[in-house]
């Protein structure tokens, strides 16, 4: 019987470590970590997705390795050891991206190297993987990766549509054909502009700050509304 209860508990823990970082404890929107790449690579959706996938890979691998070495690493040198582990996987990813997807490598540029000092990767190693089992750390890595990827993709969609007026696919992921979806801007076959409502400011750094600020404000507003409703419900209940 005890075994069953234990298993049940373990399953709940696995679920929690996977699902929590996707929405409830989203690394970018709730924890406000990893803001540097989030602002820098969100000019286009493809760059954001590419960054998200590479980020997920690095985070999951470093989480698993840190977790499996957690009883060996002495407590005095945890941070340097984690940094070396992370830097190893970042170098691996850099070399592979440069070899197989040079367009993505050129777009992300130095921000690929900067994954080494990414607050999320280091933070999850320190706060989660150094204390939990390998499987939990693996799930935590995947969950945080998905949470971060959808967050930067949302920002990238807003910035790309408002900034360029269209969604472009196939420019960075060269294995899919080049498609340009006209949304706010339309050009005909001879590149003549039919209409153009895009605001190029959103492609500049200014747009990155404004979009991120606006998203955080919307999240705060939703949170306030929920708190208000809960309070109101409590009052009704008391009556």
């Amino acid at each position, binding site marked *: 019987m005890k075994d069953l209860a234990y298993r049940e508990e373990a399953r709940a823990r696995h679920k929690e470590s996977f699902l929590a970082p996707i929405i409830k404890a989203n690394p970018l929107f709730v924890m406000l970590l990893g803001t*540097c790449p989030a602002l820098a690579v969100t000019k286009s959706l493809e760059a954001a997705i590419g960054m998200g996938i590479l980020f997920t890979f690095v985070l999951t691998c470093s989480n698993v390795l840190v977790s499996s070495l957690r009883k060996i690493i002495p407590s005095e040198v945890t941070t340097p050891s984690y940094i070396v582990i992370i830097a190893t996987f970042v170098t691996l990813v850099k070399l592979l991206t440069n070899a197989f997807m040079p367009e993505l490598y050129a777009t992300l540029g130095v921000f690929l*190297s900067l994954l080494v000092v990414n607050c999320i990767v280091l933070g999850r190693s320190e706060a989660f993987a150094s204390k939990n089992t390998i499987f939990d750390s693996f799930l935590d890595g995947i969950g945080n990766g998905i949470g971060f990827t959808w967050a930067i993709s949302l920002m990238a969609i807003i910035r790309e549509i408002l900034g360029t007026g269209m969604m472009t696919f196939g420019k960075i992921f060269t294995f899919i054909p080049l498609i340009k979806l006209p949304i706010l801007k339309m050009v005909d076959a001879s590149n003549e502009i039919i209409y153009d409502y895009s605001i190029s400011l959103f492609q500049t750094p200014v747009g990155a700050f404004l979009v991120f600020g606006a998203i955080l404000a919307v999240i705060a507003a939703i949170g306030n509304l929920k708190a208000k409703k809960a309070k109101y419900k409590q009052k009704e209940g008391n009556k």
Partner: protein
Amino acid sequence: MSYLVAFLLAIISSTLIDNVVLSRFYGICSFIGVGNKTKSSIGMGLAVTFVTVFATIICWPIYNFLLIPAEIPYMDTVVFILVIASLVQIVGYFIKKKSPSLYKTLGIYLPLITTNCAVLGVVQGNTDSGLDFGMSVANALGTSIGFFIVIFLFACIRERLEGYKVPKALKGVPIALFVAGLMAMAFLGLQGVAG
């Protein structure tokens, strides 16, 4: 003479025109985290300046005279981050011994600098674009001065904002990001100077 002019131009352009925080997005975490008190922003700015310049002076020779002759330039990130982490430790010990008053202002920011992407970003950017030693130092100096100026201005604005009434949803980080956006817009105007 012309090299000196280029040196000064490189400092100015990396300070104002291509500002580290507002157009290259390095060090946003500490920019938002520390940039709400003027005093702590000065401490952080000084510490970043110190470490970035020193890290560049050390990492450039390591890359060019050690990693390239040994044909392992792909090890750069690993080596750089180790150099920066140990440099931060050494600088911390040194300041603690020599000037306890300076340590009081800088001390708590030093551990944060290892994970500040401005330092690694500048060092990596220098070697990626193949700058020579003088230009690398100019870039490091200009970048960190730019970081200092922007984080200080940002902290001043945020301190004043605390006294004003802002909509409830915008309180805290969202309004700070809008402020940063407006600052970025102002710095965008400087790009015309480069010509």
